[in-house]
């Protein structure tokens, strides 16, 4: 299975022999850790999802954010009491929550309160079922009175106007309570994320909390919560430009901010601009180039771009990547994006966004020009293998596009480039040999 954390990355190997002092210190830490853990398990075994248990999870998660079960206990504490009880007619409508694909809490009401849930969590239902099922029945065993809103008058159906005014006030209070809880949870995870930016469980918990905002708050209130998340994604990407958790989180946040549930509109222009800024900071950031490749089709559609506008867009992208390659021809990230642009030319059925209106002959002319430009790179960089690889590949693309075999001159070029590839990049000789055979060189 893939990395779940807990493995050692980049930590220098030291002697595994500990001094007596270190051993004692370890034993003390173990004792403290296990005491906390025992307390958590004691509460859980009684299905006592109380504020005390909630606070214990805070302590233990700060020591070990990889402890996924604790994040689940924390969720159960929130559902069992710290969140308000959703009521009919409150802002927590199934309509708004059902547009959120990962808001999945399939806990049935009994699952949080029955004593059997302590050691045996309920069988989960389909993760898409019960999206708004973050309910805890009134009187749930895990909910002590006092701190919890079990006497919330909003639970009662509104019978007349006085009652409905009371219900509205209760709904407003409930929303305040939930907003405060959500914001507190978001704050709690930030230092943990900064310390463990690749911990899946923290990111996933944060997404769950945000889903609660959609399920529990009115859209404009929830939207404010979500909007702040873009800042977090940018902050995390500022610290590690390639962190795929943070990129994924950013995509998720944008998708939600664009959704009807948050009264959103397209953010494709702003996100495209963001990739540009990231690339300006670091040309080698393939994550940003990748993101660009994914945004372009939507961007052009939403701009209502006609064929000429699309072609102009392609020209601009080509100029940009060519300039980058002029200074960094050894950078794989740049060549991958260049390949993406070439694929638009050679396979417009699959990648039509920029090239749908360009006739086959013109597309071939584009490719030929690109090949010439890349040949010029060789004058300054005669020993960069990626240049030869691009020349080889694009020449084959050109033949494919023109539905012909390579000319004698092209064959000579291909053979020469391949010889250079073998010389510069013997690690991949197996691949060069396959290409040689396939092309009959």
């Amino acid at each position: 299975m893939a990395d779940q954390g807990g493995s050692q990355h980049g930590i220098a190997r030291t002697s595994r022999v500990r001094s007596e002092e270190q051993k004692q210190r370890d034993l003390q830490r173990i004792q403290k850790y296990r005491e906390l853990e025992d307390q958590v398990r004691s509460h859980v075994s009684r299905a006592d999802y109380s504020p005390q248990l909630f606070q214990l999870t805070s302590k233990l998660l700060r020591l070990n954010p990889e402890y996924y079960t604790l994040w689940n206990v924390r969720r159960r504490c929130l559902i069992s009491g710290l969140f308000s009880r959703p009521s009919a007619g409150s802002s927590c409508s199934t309509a708004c929550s059902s547009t959120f694909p990962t808001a999945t809490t399939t806990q049935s009401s009994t699952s949080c309160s029955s004593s059997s849930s302590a050691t045996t969590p309920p069988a989960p239902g389909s993760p898409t079922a019960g999206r708004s099922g973050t309910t805890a029945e009134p009187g749930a065993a895990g909910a002590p009175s006092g701190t919890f809103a079990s006497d919330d008058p909003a639970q009662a159906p509104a019978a007349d106007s006085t009652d409905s005014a009371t219900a509205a006030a209760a709904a407003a209070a409930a929303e305040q309570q939930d907003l405060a809880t959500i914001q507190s949870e978001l704050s709690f995870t930030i230092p943990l994320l900064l310390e463990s930016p690749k911990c899946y469980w923290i990111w996933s918990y944060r997404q769950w909390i945000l889903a609660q905002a959609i399920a529990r708050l009115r859209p404009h209130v929830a939207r404010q919560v979500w909007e702040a998340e873009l800042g977090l994604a940018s902050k995390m990407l500022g610290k590690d430009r390639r962190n795929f958790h943070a990129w994924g989180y950013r995509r998720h946040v944008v998708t939600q901010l664009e959704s009807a549930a948050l009264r959103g509109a397209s953010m494709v222009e702003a996100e495209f601009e963001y990739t540009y800024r990231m690339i300006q900071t670091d040309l080698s950031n393939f994550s940003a180039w990748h993101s660009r490749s994914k945004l372009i089709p939507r961007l052009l559609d939403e701009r209502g771009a006609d064929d000429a506008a699309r072609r102009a867009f392609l020209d601009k992208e080509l100029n940009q990547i060519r300039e980058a390659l002029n200074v960094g021809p050894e950078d794989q990230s740049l060549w991958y994006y260049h390949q993406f642009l070439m694929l638009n030319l050679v396979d417009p059925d699959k990648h039509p966004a920029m090239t749908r209106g360009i006739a086959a002959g013109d597309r071939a002319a584009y490719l030929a020009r690109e090949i010439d430009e890349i040949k010029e790179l060789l004058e300054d960089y005669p020993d960069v293998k990626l240049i030869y690889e691009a020349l080889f590949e694009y020449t084959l693309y050109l033949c494919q596009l023109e539905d012909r075999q390579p000319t004698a001159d092209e064959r000579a070029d291909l053979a020469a480039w391949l010889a250079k590839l073998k010389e510069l990049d013997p690690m991949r000789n197996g691949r060069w040999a396959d290409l040689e055979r396939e092309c009959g060189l």
Partner: protein
Amino acid sequence: MSENFKQLPEELQLATSAHVKYIQSLDTRKDEYDYWLTEHLRLNGLYWGLTSLHLLGHPDALPRAETIDFVLSCQHESGGFGAAPGHDAHMLSTVSAVQILAMVDAFDELESRGKGKAQVGKYIASLQNRQTGTFAGDEWGEEDTRFLYGAFNALSLLGLLHLVDVDKAVNHIAACANFDGGYGVSPGAESHAGQIFTCVAALTIAGRQDLVDKERLGRWLSERQIAGGGLNGRPEKKEDVCYSWWVLSSLEMIGKTHWIDKDQLIAFILRCQDPERGGISDRPGDMVDVWHTVFGLAGLSLLRYPGLEPVDEVYCMPKSTTARVLGR
């Protein structure tokens, strides 16, 4: 790399007995803080350790009865397994449980003393998103192609793949494909060697390798090998032993292992060993752990390093196990 194990120069010797001892020592380190901090990975760790021992040719170096007892002690009523007693059920630990039971040939004990195969299958199937076809890790809904692969891995070992919508899952994987031939965590996500392994292996289990752009993917994967012989997981990133598995197994599945320099990769993995105290690390000179140990050894096995048991490139288990369980 071939001929006789004994004829290899010293720096290319695998420290087999040190590795076996290292793995055997893992469950005796209860006076170390890290032992407790990693309890949420215990069942995964047992799978990594046991697989390592099988590949090293010492399948009996951990006691079988205790192994089975421990695995069954992690099972919940739902059929799912947690990482250890007291930990919630999760796809990742459930898959490890099934793989361990497969390796020690104990599915019968799952029937007689555990909740039974059918209940495990039901748990896993309940985590499929019936709209998109992908899978969640647990009831809280985190979705990732890792979980989809895990589901296919475990269900196929149990003979219960029919419990899920395979076609829909396959469509989801296809939606995760990128122009570079690779796959990401979810649709729209950047290609990543770990996710490529999960997607290509899931497609292989489903018999749908026809969806893979083998030329383009093979090229991307082969470019993961960098100076020094190690493999990275994405362009312009550092090398790491665990990618000896994710990249190499993917190359093996699409028949392009010869597109990288195998000898250099073998030498890189061996440089990451701790020859005295056992274990393999991410890079030379770093701390070892059982996770890098298994993926280093599995990589060496795929590279036909002498003396290692053959590994199944789809399941990351001994081929002898998958041959027995899958009847092939």
